[in-house]
């Protein structure tokens, strides 16, 4: 049954009746459904406390890095780091979510959940990069944007939206890599890029499986089922063409060998940039728009379109 459900979706007319029938049966099966343990394993790997974070990749990938701080307006959000990196004799602007490892740094980094200041800093740095023709690399790893009163008052929604708008507008090549948790709008805010890569054991979804389960099954204990249903693994996303490439991790997961994980990421980055930089900049931007325009699946005049 699960097999059937996880088949790649094919274009063409869906036979509604059949689906309804299948779904009906699944519903009857209820809590007895078979859970694919591999999916939840990936969720746990993506959240593994020893998994390399943005600053770990920066340390291992670049000869030099100068971190730049602040949104020049309200504060400096340490849940997002960014700065100029020396890369193969040239410059990259690297921006990423940052989690902490011990209790103190987790609190300081707010568990990698940015406030509006973080997205405004990211936007400021991306505009700086654009001004000087510096390509942008973003590293995605957050449970989501921080849900707090003050964050809302300072315009969390608008900050995310404007980060997206800025990324749409950039004239330089842009690459995003989902390195851990790609949680909802807080993750997407940094991922509107020419290329979106994803580490094998990362996840990327519209909502955390726990929250999804709480809403749909009124039981956050159903998170495993939600994870499977949402289709948040790299394989799922590659199938839906949400991401451009899955990067294999070192044996056992990226946390086993930070240096090897960084090498994998660096090689992939190099390939992506080589391709992007040789493109006509105007065409590159046009293709970025066309790519995101294609996102979505709907039926039009009876045909399911991808």
């Amino acid at each position, binding site marked *: 049954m699960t097999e059937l459900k996880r088949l790649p979706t094919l274009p063409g007319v869906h036979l509604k009746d059949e689906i309804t029938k299948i779904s009906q049966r699944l519903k009857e099966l209820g809590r007895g459904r078979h859970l694919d343990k591999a999916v939840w394993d990936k969720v746990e790997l993506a959240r593994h406390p020893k998994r390399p974070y943005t600053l770990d990749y920066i340390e291992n990938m670049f000869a030099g890095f100068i971190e730049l701080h602040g949104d020049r307006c309200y504060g400096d959000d340490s849940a997002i780091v960014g700065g100029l990196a020396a890369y193969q004799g040239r410059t990259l602007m690297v921006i990423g979510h940052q989690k902490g490892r011990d209790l103190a740094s987790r609190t300081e980094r707010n568990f990698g959940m940015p406030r509006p200041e973080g997205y405004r800093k990211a936007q400021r740095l991306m505009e700086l990069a654009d001004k000087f023709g510096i390509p942008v690399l973003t590293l995605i790893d957050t449970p989501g944007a921080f849900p707090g009163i003050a964050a809302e008052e300072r315009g969390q929604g608008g900050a995310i939206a404007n980060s997206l708008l800025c990324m749409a507008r950039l004239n330089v090549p842009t690459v995003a890599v989902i390195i851990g948790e790609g949680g909802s709008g807080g993750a997407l805010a940094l991922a509107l890029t020419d290329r979106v890569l994803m580490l094998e054991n990362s996840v990327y979804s519209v909502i955390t499986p726990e929250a999804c389960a709480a809403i749909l099954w009124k039981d956050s204990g159903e998170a495993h089922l939600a994870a499977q249903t949402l289709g948040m693994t790299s394989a799922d996303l590659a199938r839906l063409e949400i991401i451009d490439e899955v990067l294999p991790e070192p044996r056992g997961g990226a946390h086993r060998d930070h240096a090897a994980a960084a090498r994998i990421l660096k090689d992939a980055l190099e390939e992506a940039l080589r391709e992007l930089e040789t493109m006509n900049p105007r065409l590159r931007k046009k293709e*970025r728009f066309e790519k995101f325009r294609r996102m979505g699946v709907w039926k039009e005049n009876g045909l399911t379109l991808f």
Partner: protein
Amino acid sequence: MAQKVSVDISRRRGGSSLDGAQSCPGCKELLSPGDLSGNSMVCPHCGHHFRMTARQRIELLADPGSWSEIAGNLRSADPLEFFDLRPYPDRLEEAEYETGLSEAMLTGRARMNKMDVILAVMDFGFMGGSMGSVVGERFWRAAEEAMDTRFPLVVVCASGGARMQEGILSLLQMAKTTCAVELMAEVPIPFVTVLTHPTTGGVMASFATLADVIVAEPGALMCFSGPRVIEQTIKEKLPEDFGLAESNMDHGQVDLIVPRTELKDRLVQILGLLEGGVACALQPLWEEETRPAGRGGAFAQAFDRIKALANAPWRSSQR
């Protein structure tokens, strides 16, 4: 997230009794459906704004008979073959039945006080106004129509968040609609949003807050994270005015709050003023080398479209 906010809403918004009459959450008066529908769904006693359906909204804003739908033939698919307690197609079918709508957003051409506009209206009643692939694609088509016709775009927002049943595809509609906004900015097309109760989640973190002018309805809730999620995270009760239009105004997040009874006229004034600038700018400023490229960069298609349309015959009849 849709359902989550929806629960909150019903709690906040007062209940309805069996005969369709409901007590106003603003003044506790009992109102019959007629009391409300005859007054743009505004309480005649205290001015409390009740939720409107998409159809009511179109009736409110579009000149009679001027609405013609765009992309009305789009329907949601079920790419993830998603089921929770019920299959997604069942939920869609039910929403269609209950609302009489094809999706959570309708898009079309309309005239407002004789001004041509592209109009998009969302309906919270259709699966909590959640943004799935069809909402995203309809937004794109509306933006495209605005660029083709050079009519301004007005979007009335109402959303509980993402369409979870479309998973990651729902999330990516934020990126997709943002790209459409950026294309309009490069023309530029005047783009105004109206944030109505409630506007939250992905809509709030994409096109709703990217408009040239952001209008809010009195008392409407607007936020990115829903009130319940925040309460659970910070383990505190939220203040009474959390996320309301008036609070957002104080915090600099919206341009103006307009009571529904004045909404249409005010929108037309705003659009007219934005267009006034564009009209004037077209003559002296739109030579290639001197264009006011406030946003920098140039998307080829938007550009070419501008040049082709700058002297299109309909322009003169328009102004």
